[in-house]
C-alpha cells in the first residue's frame, strides 16, 4: 500500500469524507442532539471516543480474527465500547445523559463506525487506524458543533447555554423541523462553497 501521511488520513475524515456532510452516514444524531452546541459537542466526543477505540481494537486484532466472522466480531466490539461510553456518561455527565441517553446508545448502530472498522482499521496498522478513527470522529464532532451553533444561535439566541441575543429569533430551529432545515441549508451552502471556492463537485453522496 502506498504510504499516506498521517495528516492526510486525519484530514480526510475532517473534510474530504466528512461522515455527516459527505458520506451522509449517521445522520440521526446530527439532527437529534444538535438543538444546542453543548449536546452536539458531547455527542461528538462520545463518537470520537468510540470510533478511535473501535479502530484501535479492530486494528489490533485484525490478524487474529477470521474474515468469516469479522462483522459479528466488529459489532460486538462496537457494542462494548458504546456500553462503556454509555456507562461512563450515565455516571459522570448526568444532565446531558438525561437528554440524549438514547442517542448515545444508538451509536452502536451508526453505519459510520462499522464502515470505518471494515474499510480502514481491518486493513491498516494501529497508528493509522487510530488516526483514521480520530479524524472521522473529529469530523463528526465538527459537523455536529457546526449544526449545533447554527440551531442554538438562531433558535435560542444563545451558545453553549449562554444567552447572547436575549431573545429567541427563530424558535423553530430547535424543533425537529428546524433541525432538518439547518442540515439541508448548511449542506447546500457547503456544497456551494465547495463548488465555487474549491472547484469540487459539491455533491453529497446520500444515504447508507
Amino acid at each position: 500500500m502506498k504510504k499516506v501521511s498521517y495528516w492526510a488520513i486525519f484530514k480526510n475524515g475532517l473534510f474530504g469524507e466528512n461522515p455527516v456532510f459527505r458520506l451522509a452516514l449517521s445522520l440521526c444524531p446530527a439532527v437529534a442532539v444538535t438543538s444546542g452546541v453543548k449536546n452536539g459537542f458531547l455527542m461528538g466526543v462520545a463518537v470520537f471516543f468510540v470510533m478511535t477505540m473501535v479502530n484501535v481494537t479492530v486494528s489490533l486484532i485484525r490478524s487474529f480474527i477470521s474474515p468469516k466472522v469479522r462483522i459479528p466480531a466488529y459489532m460486538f466490539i462496537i457494542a462494548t465500547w458504546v456500553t462503556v461510553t454509555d456507562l461512563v456518561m450515565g455516571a459522570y455527565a448526568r444532565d446531558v445523559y438525561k437528554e440524549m441517553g438514547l442517542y448515545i446508545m444508538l451509536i452502536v448502530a451508526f453505519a459510520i463506525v462499522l464502515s470505518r472498522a471494515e474499510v480502514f482499521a481491518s486493513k491498516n496498522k494501529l497508528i493509522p487506524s487510530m488516526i483514521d478513527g480520530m479524524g472521522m470522529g473529529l469530523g463528526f464532532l465538527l459537523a455536529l458543533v457546526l449544526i449545533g451553533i447554527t440551531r442554538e444561535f438562531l433558535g435560542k439566541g444563545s451558545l453553549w447555554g449562554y444567552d447572547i441575543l436575549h431573545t429567541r429569533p427563530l424558535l423553530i430551529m430547535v424543533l425537529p423541523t428546524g433541525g432538518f432545515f439547518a442540515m439541508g441549508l448548511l449542506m447546500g451552502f457547503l456544497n456551494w462553497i465547495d463548488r465555487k471556492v474549491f472547484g469540487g463537485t459539491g455533491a453529497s453522496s446520500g444515504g447508507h
Partner: protein
Amino acid sequence: MKEMLKITLSLVAIFVVAGMIMVGVFYVTSPVRFKAEKKEKEEALKKMAPEADVITEVGKWNIGRKHYDYHEAKSGRRIVAYIATTAGKGYSSYVKMLVSVDRDIRVKGVQVLDHAETPGLGDQIIEEEWFLEQFKGKEFSQLALLKKPTKENIQAISGATISSRAVTNGVKDAVQMLIERYGGGIKVATHGVKK
C-alpha cells in the same frame, strides 16, 4: 476443523475480554451513578424545603395508573413541609413536578422535574420564572387557571395555556391529596373552580 476451532476460540477470547471490560466499567461506574441519582433526588427535595434537615418518604399515591410518592420534611422534630411528586397532562407530555406545602397546606413551591413540552412554547413554564413563582402561598381554592392577569389565582402563559394548565392541575391534585391526608379541618371546596 482446526479452522472452526480457531474461529470459535478467537470469538470467545473477544467475548471474554470485552465482557471483562464492560463488567469492570460497570462496577466502577454504577455506584457513582447510583449516588448521583440519589443525590439529585435529594437535592430536588431539599430545594423544596431548604429549612428541613430530614426529608423522608412516607407514602404513595396515584393519578390514574401512575404512582407518585409524598414526603414529610422535618426540621428537628417539627414538620415544616409536605412534599409530593405529581404530574399534569400537558400538550405533548405529562409534566412531572414536585410540590411542597406548608403545615396549613398552602403551596410553598413548585418544581418541574421532567417534561417534553414544545421548546419555546410549553417550556416557558420553566423559562418564565414568574409562572411557577405565583403558586407560592396559594391555597387550594385559589388554584384556578385564568387567561388574564390575576393576583388571586394562577395566570396562564399566553401561547402555552395547555402546559400552564398541566402544572396547575398537577399541583391541585397533589394539594388535594395532601389535604385529605393532613388537612384535618380544611374544606376542599371544589365547586366554582374550573378544572
